[in-house]
């Protein structure tokens, strides 16, 4: 089978990415025993409060940074599984026909209130995402609240008439961008610490401008790219933003595939 130039280019990029990722993982595993210094955890507990603004983010993004990364990819795996189990019918063109009874079951009050409520849920979800580094919120609960807004409109108006008309491709792109934000932010920390300290430390909080390149100082900001926050949490809000995008897109995709699933006849 002859592949087009576009497909060949994609394969080459995928191959190079795989080689780089494998090298980084193998190198980290090879030197893993060097990182385990006795007494280090005691010292780390003393200084962890200086790395992240509060104990929630220390635990979520520092002690359990890998765990959060894993959760992000568990969600992607869940979406893939749902797609394989329920979504193949929609991919094959067997879209379930929405009978008038399905969407007409909702009452006038539901139809009137669903869209404004969805807008408010989306806005509240974003508020939770943006406060994740200083309050018990974050990307996961915030993204789930945003996806709830989508569920509401889909259930009330039906998949074809919903005002929030996401497409498969749009949600897949959002989910991928969210996961990549988290992944690449972690890789930046890994590269930074490997280069300067010789200890590869994934998800190291480098701050947003470690080289002080873009020092503007306008509006009283210390740094133009710094998330303007009194606690100066560095990269943590951006991690939350990435996780939020991933979760909202992933859960919305699952809802979409479940709605599109062809009833087993």
């Amino acid at each position, binding site marked *: 089978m002859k592949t087009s130039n576009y497909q060949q280019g994609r394969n080459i990029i995928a191959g190079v990415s795989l080689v780089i990722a494998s090298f980084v993982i193998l190198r980290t595993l090879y030197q893993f025993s060097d990182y385990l210094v006795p007494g280090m955890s005691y010292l780390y507990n003393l200084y962890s409060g200086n790395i992240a603004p509060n104990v929630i983010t220390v635990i979520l993004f520092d002690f359990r940074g890998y765990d959060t990364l894993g959760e992000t990819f568990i969600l992607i795996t869940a979406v893939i599984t749902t797609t394989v189990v329920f979504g193949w019918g929609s991919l094959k063109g067997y879209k379930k026909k929405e009978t008038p009874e399905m969407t007409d079951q909702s009452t006038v009050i539901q139809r009137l209130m669903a869209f404004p409520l969805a807008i408010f849920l*989306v806005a509240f979800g974003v508020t939770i995402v943006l406060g994740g580094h200083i309050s018990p919120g974050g990307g996961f609960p915030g993204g789930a609240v945003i996806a709830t807004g989508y569920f509401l409109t889909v259930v009330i108006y039906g998949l074809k008439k919903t005002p929030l*008309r996401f497409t498969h491709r749009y949600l897949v792109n959002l989910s991928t961008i969210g996961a990549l934000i988290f992944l690449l932010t972690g890789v930046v920390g890994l590269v930074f610490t490997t280069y300067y300290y010789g200890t590869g430390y994934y998800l190291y909080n480098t701050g947003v401008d470690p080289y002080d390149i873009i020092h503007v100082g306008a509006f009283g900001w210390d740094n133009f790219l710094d998330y303007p926050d009194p606690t100066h949490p560095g990269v943590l809000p951006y991690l939350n*933003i990435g996780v939020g995008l991933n979760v909202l897109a992933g859960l919305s995709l699952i809802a979409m595939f479940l709605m599109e699933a062809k009833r087993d006849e």
Partner: protein
Amino acid sequence: MSSEVAALGLANQWGPILFGLIYGIIIGYKVKSEEINKAMYPVILIVSILIAAALGTYPDYQWTLFGHIIRFSEAFFSTVLGIFISMIIRRQ
């Protein structure tokens, strides 16, 4: 934390406003406004202002104006604004 931050004068709310707008534009880009009653828009805006005022400074960002703290959730309101901006861009 809110009162401490206000006392220190360190509160800065531009981050939530900026990223709320970005999130709102991303999500609002896929809103189909044809089937929505136009009378809903001013109602949504007014109610969102009320909700943002009810949320207060959550999540701990404050706008200080002439020495007074404006207890208003900028992230919430800027997301609603972002959705409307995206809908306007989409229609043009």
